[in-house]
């Protein structure tokens, strides 16, 4: 799946499954974070740090970051092929926006393991 998602050529079924699978992870993570805020009356720096000190939370967060990247990559491709008809401009925008997405994931990773 990772190799397919990294390739330039899109596969309809692959994208269809990837979008839904990653959306499930993102939803689960959103519920997890919302649950944390709802069950924690006062969120202090110590409590927040302790949450992300847990390896399971780090892995869950990292997987969610990867899911967001895959999800936005497919979404960006769909939006760009809809609205940007020039192949050169579309390839350029796709490269820049995907690089930005990757930068978010890598930055998230550094922040996560810096806790």
């Amino acid at each position: 799946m990772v190799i397919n998602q990294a390739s330039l050529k899109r596969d309809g079924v692959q994208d269809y499954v990837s979008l839904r699978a990653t959306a499930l992870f993102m939803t689960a993570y959103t519920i997890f974070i919302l649950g944390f805020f709802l069950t924690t009356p006062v969120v202090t720096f110590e409590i927040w740090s302790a949450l992300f000190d847990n390896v399971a939370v780090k892995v869950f967060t990292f997987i969610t970051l990867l899911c967001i990247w895959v999800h936005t990559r497919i979404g960006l491709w769909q939006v760009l092929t809809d609205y940007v008809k020039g192949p050169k401009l579309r390839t350029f925008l796709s490269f820049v926006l995907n690089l930005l997405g990757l930068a978010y994931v890598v930055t998230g990773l550094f922040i996560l393991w810096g806790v």
Partner: protein
Amino acid sequence: MKTLNFSVYRYNSDVDDAPYMKDYQLEVEDGHDMMVLDALILLKEQDPTLVFRRSCREGVCGSDGLNMNGKNGLACITPVSSLGKGTIILRPLPGLPVVRDLVIDMTQFFTQYEKVKPFLINDDKQPPAREYLQSVEERDKLDGLYECILCACCSTSCPSFWWNPDKFVGPAGLLHAYRFLIDSRDTATDERLADLDDAFSVFRCHGIMNCVNVCPKGLNPTKAIGHIKSMLLQRSV
């Protein structure tokens, strides 16, 4: 008597530099309703240069698909009273080239329709003595699919078809594709699915459901497309 106000899209490439909206008035008796097509025929008596398609005038042929007050539909089965009391704005179906006034060039629409091979394919390995028989249950599966009259109201209301009319088959074509995919007499299921298995033909449908909203026959192309996606998924795993 009451006055009905119309604003109609006009364009004749031989005369006009650009399309424009032209206002018309129609005097009708109080309490009297009519279909939009009837109104257009009366307007054509006022202005013989007004051009639109129509044929059966009873929602069967699919010729008079129009955009009426922003929503696609068939002029012959849309009562004027259903369009509110303000000015009725009539435009050609969006997304396809305009030939003249309310007439569009449907070549792109039918090119996509042709792609799905909208006819029964049977390998004839077990030819029947007289005719291909279906059980009642098998025949029931075609309900909600075969009724499509190819008026193009659905495909021309679909943003995915607007942006990619050359690659995305569109709701009408896909409704017909599913109609043959589940036909018990058709033996080309795998070939049909192989033809649709790319990133655009089917998967450009994002479930916006404009097609369902506008279909004058009350059909549900989004549901049929969902079934095709499931079949493609099952074929891949």
